[in-house]
């Protein structure tokens, strides 16, 4: 497909397999994914198709039962968790914090891979955390306890935490799920800007198919734990491909205003 041979692969999953327990059905069944440096990639697919498990495998939070994950060509098993955390930031679907930490305290935890066990954050870390909050348009939340924030606001704080990590690559699991119209667009705009200005790499799990074309560079469609289709957004966002991936013949895709709109007929 759109294989650009001189693009560097930052994270590569090779023939990944995973089951949550011995003897349990495999959730990921031989998936291979390349997250290319300086590109925005998306992981789409039906509920329960294994997207979240796959992104956790790529983040090094789960160990594949077969296959391997490479970070910059080095097997992830040989990269220390701390080194990994400096290069890759992962944002889970939901974070439920019990204690009323302030948003700034949560964002500052993103600095921990850059500081030592015995040192508290410096002014430089504080600046990075505040810049991250500003980047997601959440400066006003700084002193608020995260336990009192709405789901969307908490998602912004999680994102800011990941940005404060100053990673090479963002792995985001449904970052836009709880966001409103404005913040959803803001997120994509920000990811685009990070890519264009800083060469940031990102892999985003999403159900918002309309966000993908033309802003994303590559889309992986996951079906039943395998990569069912991959390529540029325009190549994957086609009715016959999506009908197959989602098992739904009512899927429609139309191009208008320079975007591809996707919905399912009611």
């Amino acid at each position, binding site marked *: 497909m759109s294989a650009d041979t001189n693009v560097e692969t930052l994270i590569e999953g090779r023939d990944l397999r995973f089951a*949550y327990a011995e003897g349990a059905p495999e959730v990921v069944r031989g998936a291979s994914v390349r997250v290319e440096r300086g590109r925005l990639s998306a992981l789409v697919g039906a509920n329960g198709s294994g997207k979240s498990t796959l992104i956790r495998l790529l*983040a090094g*939070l789960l160990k594949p039962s077969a296959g391997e994950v490479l970070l910059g060509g080095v097997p992830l098993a040989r990269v*220390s*968790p*701390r*080194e*990994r*955390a*400096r290069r*890759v*930031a*992962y944002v*889970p679907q939901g*974070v*439920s*914090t*019990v*204690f*009323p*930490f*302030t948003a*700034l*305290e*949560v964002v*500052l*935890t*993103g600095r*921990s*891979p850059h500081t030592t*066990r015995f*040192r*508290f*954050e410096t*002014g430089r870390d*504080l*600046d990075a955390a*505040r810049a991250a909050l500003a980047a997601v348009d959440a400066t006003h939340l*700084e*002193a608020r306890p995260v*336990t009192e924030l709405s789901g969307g606001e908490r998602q912004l704080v*999680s994102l800011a*935490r990941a940005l404060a*990590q100053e990673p090479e690559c963002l792995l985001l699991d449904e970052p836009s799920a709880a966001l409103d119209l404005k913040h959803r667009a803001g997120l994509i705009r920000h990811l685009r800007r990070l890519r264009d200005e800083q060469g940031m790499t990102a892999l985003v799990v999403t159900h918002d198919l309309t966000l993908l074309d033309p802003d994303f560079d590559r889309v992986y469609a996951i079906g039943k734990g395998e990569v069912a289709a991959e390529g540029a957004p325009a190549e994957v966002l086609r009715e016959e491909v999506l009908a197959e991936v989602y098992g739904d013949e009512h899927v429609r895709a139309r191009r208008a205003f320079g975007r591809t709109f996707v919905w399912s007929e009611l």
Partner: protein
Amino acid sequence: MSSELMKTKGAGSDLALQSAVRDPNSAAAGRRLRRALGWLFLFLLVSTLVSLWVGYRRLDLAALWTDEGARFLFFGLRLPRVLMAGVVGASLGVVGAALQAMFRNPLAEPLTLGVSGGGALGASVAIAFGAGAKVAGLPVVFVAAFAGACLSVVVVYRLARTGATVLPGALLLAGVVMNTVAAAGVVVIQYFADYSRALQILRWTIGSLDVVGFDLIWRMLLFLVPGWVVLLLLARDLHLLAVDEETAAALGVNVRRSERLVYVASSLIVGVTVAVGGTIGFVGLIVPHAVRLLFGEDVRVVMPCSFVLGAAFLMLADAVARTALGAGELPVGAITALAGGPVFLWLLRRQQRYTAL
């Protein structure tokens, strides 16, 4: 060009100054810890002096120089006891803070999680089968209490954990059941043990910080200091775990290893304190909570502060226990339970508002 440079430089230092001045409460955790420890050490000093002063016989400074009996009373009984209260209180405070962070549950503490109960059962078994013995130089009671505490923390955690989450309600229920079973076990052992040993167990279950001389304290410290060091070294990992377990893992925390270290260190500390002073409840609950109210949620601040405040708190509780009845003495565990029970219920009520137990 140079004026341009000046401008950006000026803007940069402005920004730095601003970030240093703005919002001192939520931002610089390091500065907050130093300030908090300053106040708490002052409080500890006052608590120590008060505890040394009060008692069945008021401290008489002049008599210390002249009277041999007064000297023994002070250096042989009063000072070791105050020190013992401090050591046990600091231990329970820091363990409470660690368990709360690890389980992401403000109601977790050695008593509510059944760790104290398990330790008590272990110690009772040891006393019933001959307490004086030593294995490789360690008192059997210490080892047995540690084993009991360790076992119960693992059982409780396994029961409450489903996949990636620890259910807060299940955690506390499992702790309660563990305590009940352990208490029943202690009663059964008492029933079957011979008379003198049964009496020994009974006296020990009531718990007391009574101690003669410093020997026992040094022996305890041999076990406690490594436990303290491990927990305080894990403060940052626990801070990240308290925010969110999966995020902590993504930020480079080796979650399994940290959890195991917290189990072992907490069990060691609780086992030893239970073996010496019996179950003293709620110190590990009240102290970290007070610290959080005063100095914020950052676990790296809460843990060392709970250590210092725990020492001061139990010293004062023990001073009350020693003096409330005049000549007699209340078990210090009763004082901490009377103070801690209501705090627990208040916390429970507060927590219900935003998390489903």
